[in-house]
């Protein structure tokens, strides 16, 4: 006799713990792969997972086995023309016939062990040990989200919320309460009946016995008439609506699009913005992105225009900062929103303007935002904007950060630096 069981609905992720342990053990390798991936992959690709490759010598589980040498006899199938005594050239590369073990055991022949990690794992490694500075204002919205939470039990409700355990418990209690007297009588009668039955036959009080029997029938019927479940017993899970604190963030991408900004520089800036966006996504459910570009004038644009349309002309950075401040005032009250600003530029600015940039930043923008990061993408010398910004940093070391990027390989390290976990200092 065989039992046939359908196990297909059982969990399929039995190995996930083991997989996690494996990933943990090879953390170092995986992080290296992730860092490489950031450098080499195109921007839009960052959303997917990544392939991780680990040299198999690092990953092998050694066992004792024979090395090459000594005397080996090995039997092979499929002889075609050999006769006894034929001599063959020893095959080159590795000990010939080094044993019967699998090739992987000896670490020869197999070069690398590669596998896929998924997007979440990829991001986990990508943003490991990074944190958002000055976390997250949570605001109880009056408009926004509600969720239902369990709040005790009620006697009314709709059938889908019925609480079976409570209902049956109360039915049970009711039955006990209502039938208590009757059952007590039944018990007493049964005892008496038993006593009577045990007496010798001739000494039995037959009349009493039949009385008891009749009475028992009546009583048992009475007990069995009690309904098993009464509407009165039904209990329902009581759910109440509670507002959910929602955390929202807005990210301002501010970029210089003046003539000096080449497409290569813009690409680097885009990668930086994208990293920031993905990073914010991990902390906030809802993120607005505002794109502001500027040359001598600042303008709010959509993503396409932001990255790809070409402009020429001079550069006045303060225009963008002023616009940022305006947009914040208009649409993103700092009480409700977590505000992040990322600015990318090649460092060029009209000489007289850097001063007012600083003024604007310190007075109007920085008090309202969570974090302001400035990256300068240039291989040249710093210009006056950088020096003005340095002053800002000295005043607001908590909320203002600036870094320089020279090559696209720098983006990720710089990003890590800007958002690395701070100690308690």
């Amino acid at each position: 006799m065989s039992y046939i069981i359908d196990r297909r609905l059982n969990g399929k992720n039995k190995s996930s713990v083991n997989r996690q342990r494996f990933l943990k053990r090879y953390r170092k390798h995986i992080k290296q792969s992730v860092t490489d991936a950031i450098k080499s992959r195109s921007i839009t690709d960052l959303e997917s997972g990544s392939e991780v490759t680990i040299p198999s010598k690092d990953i092998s589980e050694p066992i004792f086995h024979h090395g090459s040498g000594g005397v080996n006899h090995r039997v092979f199938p499929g002889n075609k023309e050999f006769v006894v005594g034929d001599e063959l050239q020893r095959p080159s590369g590795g000990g010939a016939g080094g044993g019967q073990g699998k090739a992987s055991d000896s670490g020869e022949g197999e070069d690398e062990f590669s596998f896929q990690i998924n997007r979440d794992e990829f991001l986990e490694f990508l943003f490991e040990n990074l944190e958002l500075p000055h976390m997250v204002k949570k605001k109880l919205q009056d408009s926004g989200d509600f969720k239902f939470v369990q709040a005790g039990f009620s006697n009314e409700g709709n059938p889908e919320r019925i609480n079976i355990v409570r209902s049956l418990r109360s039915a049970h209690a009711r039955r006990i309460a209502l039938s208590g007297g009757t059952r007590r009588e039944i018990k007493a009668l049964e005892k008496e009946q038993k006593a009577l039955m045990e007496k010798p036959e001739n000494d039995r009080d037959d009349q009493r016995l039949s009385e008891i029997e009749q009475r028992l029938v009546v009583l048992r019927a009475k007990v069995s008439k009690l309904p098993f479940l009464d509407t009165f017993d039904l209990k329902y899970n009581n759910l109440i609506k509670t507002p959910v604190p929602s955390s929202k963030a807005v990210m301002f991408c501010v970029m210089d699009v003046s003539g000096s900004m080449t497409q290569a520089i813009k690409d680097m800036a885009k990668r930086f913005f994208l990293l920031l966006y993905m990073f914010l996504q991990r902390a906030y459910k809802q993120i607005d992105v505002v794109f502001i570009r500027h040359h001598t004038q600042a303008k709010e644009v959509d993503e396409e225009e932001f990255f790809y349309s070409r402009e020429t002309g001079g550069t006045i950075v303060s225009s963008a900062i002023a616009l940022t401040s305006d947009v914040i005032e208009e649409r993103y009250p700092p009480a409700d929103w977590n505000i992040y600003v990322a600015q990318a530029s090649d460092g060029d600015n009209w000489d007289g303007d850097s001063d007012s940039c600083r003024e604007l930043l310190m007075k109007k923008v920085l008090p309202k935002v969570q974090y302001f990061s400035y990256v300068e993408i240039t291989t040249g010398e710093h210009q006056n904007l950088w020096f003005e910004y340095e002053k800002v940093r000295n005043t607001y070391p908590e909320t203002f950060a600036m870094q320089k990027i020279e090559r696209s390989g720098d983006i990720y390290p710089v990003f890590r630096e800007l958002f690395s976990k701070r100690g308690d200092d």
Partner: protein
Amino acid sequence: MKKKPISTGSEWTFELLEAYDSAISQEAERFELDTYPNQIEVITSEQMMDAYASVGMPLNYNHWSFGKQFVQTQQNYQRGRMGLAYEIVINSSPCISYLMEENTMTMQALVIAHACYGHNSFFKGNYLFRTWTNATAIIDYLVFAKHYITRCEEQYGIEEVEQLLDSCHALQNYGVNRYKRPQPISAEEEKKRQQDRSEILQQQVNQLWDTIPKKDEVDADGKSNAPRFPPEPEENILYFLEKNAPLLEPWQREVIRIARKTAQYFYPQKQTQVMNEGWACFWHYTLLHSLYDKGLVTDGFMMEFLHSHSSVVYQPPFDSPYFSGINPYTLGYHMMQDLRRICEDPTNEDKEWFSDIAGSNWLDTMQEAMRNYKDESFIQQFLSPRLMRELKLFSITDDEKQNNLIVSNIHDEGGYRQLRTDLSEQYNLGSREPNIQIYNVDVRGDRSLTLRHYRHNNRPLADSADELLKHLHRLWGFDVHLESVRGDEVVKTFHCPQRES
């Protein structure tokens, strides 16, 4: 009279599975296959990968190496580099077989015949499995092991346990008793043993680690002539460490024990691969053919079945790019068929070579062979000259002292016996794995542990030995030495911690 076929389409249903199973089981009964009860579980390919990753067991403790295995399987499968096995079968009672839902009806029937009646009867009948594994208890033991290791992880930290398991896994091949056999013990004895185990800490302070020198151990020139410990070399390294390593905590001993017990459970499978697969293939072939003879399956069914059967038992020749050693399915299956042929239809050659079985009852002879042999002895006993010719076997001698490889034997009159011995030796685990045993403990001195590798055919140890010594060192806690010896001469030594020069 032909009956109506059980099914005609390729889709399977649970009703059909049952119908096939009961038809096959009737045939199996006719052939006196004695099996454990069957538990057939239908699973998805993801679940199959999970099963792969935990060495085919339905449950196992957690360890990164199983994760690695899983990742590898998943990767290969998703890229289409490998198909999953159609089935996994577990030596337990009831005997659990996994069928994949993707299989066609024919494949399911093939798997039922192969696993549920072929492998199952082998597990129940073969002497190695009977001696070394306890089919009714293995699942319970795995549950215990899983819980125990989880508890240890909670108590001592995942990392600590992982390191210990790493070392145990590395030495798992040396966690089995190769030659000793367990004595059946009574319940009372079992109880006593358990007590002994819990008193193991007490044992630690016994005479082994008593450091007060005794008079008779030091002879005139002050040289120690204390008896070696252990007095006889110990082949079961994990067992020795579990019982004698000075610094281990009781829970660590129990973990070693778990690794050792698991290794011992799998040991018979390693020694009977050819026979086990051969037996199962022989029976799926025989059972399904007898269904066909009764008209219970269609021609289409047989075509599909034969197609996959012949790809399973295909042996690529040595010079084929697909060659990766002798296919145990091929060798086993053909030997089993050949055995039946020798019984039923012996030639003069067979009568000369197998005078005792030629012409005997084939079923009895095969059952007898299945019960009492392992790969090594099975080949030595039953590989016929005819089959050697069919498979065109030849053997190559690789002697490091010679410049060239030499074809030492081929399938001809002069070569049959030696060829058979060579092949049999190839399946002898004792010579396949380096023979390493615990040789001595410097009990009175620095407590260092010395192991000896006894060279067979002068084959050296591979460099992985250094890595392995680290694991031994972790478990033993003091210096570990490994001497590779030829005869009585020490040829090479390994040390951990490593010595200068």
